[in-house]
């Protein structure tokens, strides 16, 4: 790694006079939000909204041309993130001033902010998933399941773009104070909210209303959500960071639930089992806002505890409060009172059979015995604790990011 040190010294200004690890360069322009933070945010927003739209398209119209606006929005997100990060890396490497180079990391001879490399990696993964997914559809059939190997590559790519976006905001955010820090933290939390929205879409196979009395559902949420909530909240200073993230998720999900049905649509594929006249949205958001508030309240008071104790407390609070909120709310969503535009319990995709548990608003129990249920619930608790612990570690790591 001598090359790295040499290269860094070559690019930094003044290179020779600074003893390694002893001095820093004063950064200018710290009050402005860098352009690449905006492009990363819009790339993430485009991909996440496009994904939601695409799922709704598949539920309402079915498989369509590659050139649907929903597909284009997802691809635009990948292209915007990929190109802007590629430009940022190339510019920093070949045209960057000392300030830009000093706030960069080295990667295969290139220099740029760490987030740019992560987002570029995400863009490449998304591009890789396209031919892989196309072949998969030809070989196995279209979207037999959401969680397939090519979709996982796509998801990793999207996560790469989003985490890259987070870290692009983190570098200047962690180096700033005052108003600049506050503005960057808003962008950081907004990007985090988009990540939570996407995570919710990825676990929707497990989170539909008929499954919300199953331990498997709580296990899936416990695995996927605390790491995002706690991780991003730990890196931010806002004491209501978890609440803000869950609020962004809930607002987006509700807005889509109420707006999408305003647009007409009819299935192009068959067999059709439900009469569709408009775009079918995803269902009512999970009540993640409730455990998010609880986690925010608790985490403000336990900062002095060890990380594992924090994880045990926060994980337990998250899961128990979420169960207390979601379990009875699922009962409500199955009732006639929820079959309206506000709660959207009567929206079904065109291919749902009339005899389905969805259509009859019945729960679909998957655990055969009480013992199996509690065994999986125990795993859910363990998952919540481990996910929280990983979130704390990730958050601590993000707090230290400077480049």
């Amino acid at each position: 790694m001598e090359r790295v040190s040499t290269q860094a010294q070559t690019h930094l200004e003044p290179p020779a006079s600074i003893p390694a690890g002893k001095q820093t360069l004063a950064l200018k322009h710290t009050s402005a939000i860098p352009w690449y933070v905006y492009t990363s945010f819009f790339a993430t927003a485009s991909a996440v909204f496009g994904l939601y739209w695409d799922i709704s398209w598949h539920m309402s119209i079915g498989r369509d041309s590659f050139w649907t606006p929903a597909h284009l929005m997802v691809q635009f997100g990948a292209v915007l993130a990929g190109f802007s990060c590629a430009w940022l890396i190339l510019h920093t490497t070949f045209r960057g001033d000392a300030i830009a180079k000093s706030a960069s990391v080295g990667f295969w001879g290139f220099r740029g902010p760490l987030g740019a490399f992560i987002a570029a990696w995400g863009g490449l993964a998304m591009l890789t998933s396209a031919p892989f997914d196309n072949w998969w559809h030809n070989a196995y059939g279209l979207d037999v399941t959401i969680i397939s190997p090519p979709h996982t590559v796509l998801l990793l790519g999207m996560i790469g773009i989003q985490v890259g976006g987070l870290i692009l905001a983190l570098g200047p955010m962690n180096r700033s104070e005052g108003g600049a820090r506050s503005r960057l933290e808003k962008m950081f939390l907004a990007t985090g909210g988009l990540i939570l929205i996407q995570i919710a879409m990825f676990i929707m196979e497990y989170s539909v209303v008929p499954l919300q009395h199953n331990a498997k559902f709580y296990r899936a949420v416990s695995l996927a959500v605390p790491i995002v909530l706690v991780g991003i909240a730990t890196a931010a200073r806002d004491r209501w960071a978890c609440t803000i993230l869950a609020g962004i998720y809930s607002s987006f999900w509700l807005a889509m639930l109420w707006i999408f049905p305003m647009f007409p649509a009819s299935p192009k594929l068959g067999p059709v089992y439900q009469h569709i006249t408009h775009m079918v949205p995803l269902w009512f958001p999970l009540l993640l806002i409730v455990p998010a508030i609880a986690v925010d309240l608790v985490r403000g008071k336990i900062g002095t505890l060890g990380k594992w104790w924090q994880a045990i407390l926060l994980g337990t609070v998250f899961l128990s409060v979420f169960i207390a909120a979601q379990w009875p709310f699922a009962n409500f969503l199955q009732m006639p009172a929820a079959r309206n535009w506000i709660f959207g319990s009567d929206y079904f995709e065109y291919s749902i059979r009339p005899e389905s548990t969805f259509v009859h608003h019945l729960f679909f129990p998957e655990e055969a015995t009480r013992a199996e249920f509690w065994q999986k619930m125990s795993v859910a608790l363990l998952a919540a604790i481990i996910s929280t612990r990983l979130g704390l570690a990730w958050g601590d790591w993000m707090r230290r990011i400077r480049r």
Partner: protein
Amino acid sequence: MRKIAWLALFLLVATAALAHVGSQDIYYEGNAGPYHLYVTVHMPQTIPGIAKVEMRSATGGIREIHIAPMALLGSTKLSPVPDLVQRSKADPQFFTGNVWLMEASGFQVHIQADGDLGHGELGVPGTAMPQGILPMQQALGTVLFVLMLLLAAGLVSIMGASAREAQLEPGVVPTTRNVRRGWIAMAAAAVVVAVMLILGNLWWSADRRSHLMLTRPVRLRASLQGSRLVLDLPDGRVETRRGVFVDWQRFLGINLLIPDHNHLMHLFLVRSPMLDQFWHLHPTPDSRAWFSASLPSLPAGHYQLFADIVRITGAAPTLIGEIDLPEVKGSDLVGDDAGTAAPPVSAGQDRTVSELADGGRMIWERDPGPLKSRSFLSFCFRVEDKDGQPARDLEPYMDMAGHAEFIRSDFSAFAHVHPMGNVAMAAVQLADASLDANTPQLTASESSMSMHIPEVPETPAPPSEMQMPGARSGSEVSFPYGFPGPGTYRIFVQVKRRSHIETGIFDAHVE
């Protein structure tokens, strides 16, 4: 939602596989109002997938045809937006179009024809199921492999850069300690990436195995008890990809089947390897097993079994099996059961004339020229009495002018064909009923999950001689079909004359 959808898919696939064996394309002949159509549906390899629909009209004056895929149960109110098919420039009577089949189940292609003679509709029923997994092309595999290496190396390097420099204040040069941390992070990341790739590969392999399982026909367990053939569903339970166990009885229970030509099962016993014994029996539900049937007297040998059933959804799977039989001293054939001994299948010339038991003959009026696979062909058979005169004594055999079975000599393909095509009559009736917009939709209580049998449209009274479906004239019967691939095929054609069922035997060599 997808989870349940996947489970439903599995159940449907498991019970749909396979409609016919090795012969998935649909060949159908019927009337869309005033227009007589010959329809071929080339089924996709995978479900969901695209089926290619070819239609030739025997009637002129069609202006346009729209097609849409529909469920067999339900009404045209639930049709997706129909697609306009393309008319051939070379042949104005020939039309082609595509339909997406999203579900492994019974389905129909709903055809709407409009032209000088007015409007007409036709439902062509079929059973959609995945047939296999396409291999990956080498070039694509190479590109993806390189991209995978690039992504893996990129991830490792990003982790290294992250640990080495990302946490340093701008301008600070990484120390030796930082560099070492970078190396350690890269080593750890390499291990994690390797584990992820290994787990991914295991996942992919498991996925492939479970998918392949869905493409195979359900294999029956057959045993002999006295002179009775007993059929049982496969042993044990099947694990779906999601780890949900399903019991075969739950999906192929007797009360989930509907009769086809008044029988819940049509069983064909064919002795291998020479196809020199052929028996078409109709097992009945057995309280101690699944189905059972009294066997006629049979010579010893190894027999292949093909069992046609129709599910409540209209899906018409063919289950397979095999059994070694000793010489069986069985009972006389009764009802619609029929069969015959046959000469060994001929690997040389086509066999186009078959001698019948009463001294008459059945003649395959084969067009000259080679037989091509995957093409719509009309197989016409003429029955002559012992004086060489056209037979005037044909009667409906299970409501049809005749039944034909096409079997490849290696048993890799089997199709039970009727005069309107290689579809089950019960499915045709469901399709016809669904074209009536007033048909009530399937309700939950009638669904397969609730194990009630919906009312199948009443079987029409036996038609008169000239009205029999598929009867070209009083002595001829025809079947639309296309061979699935090259090879030697044996064709068994069954007709009924003076209450006696005759079986004609023909051999065909297909390019």
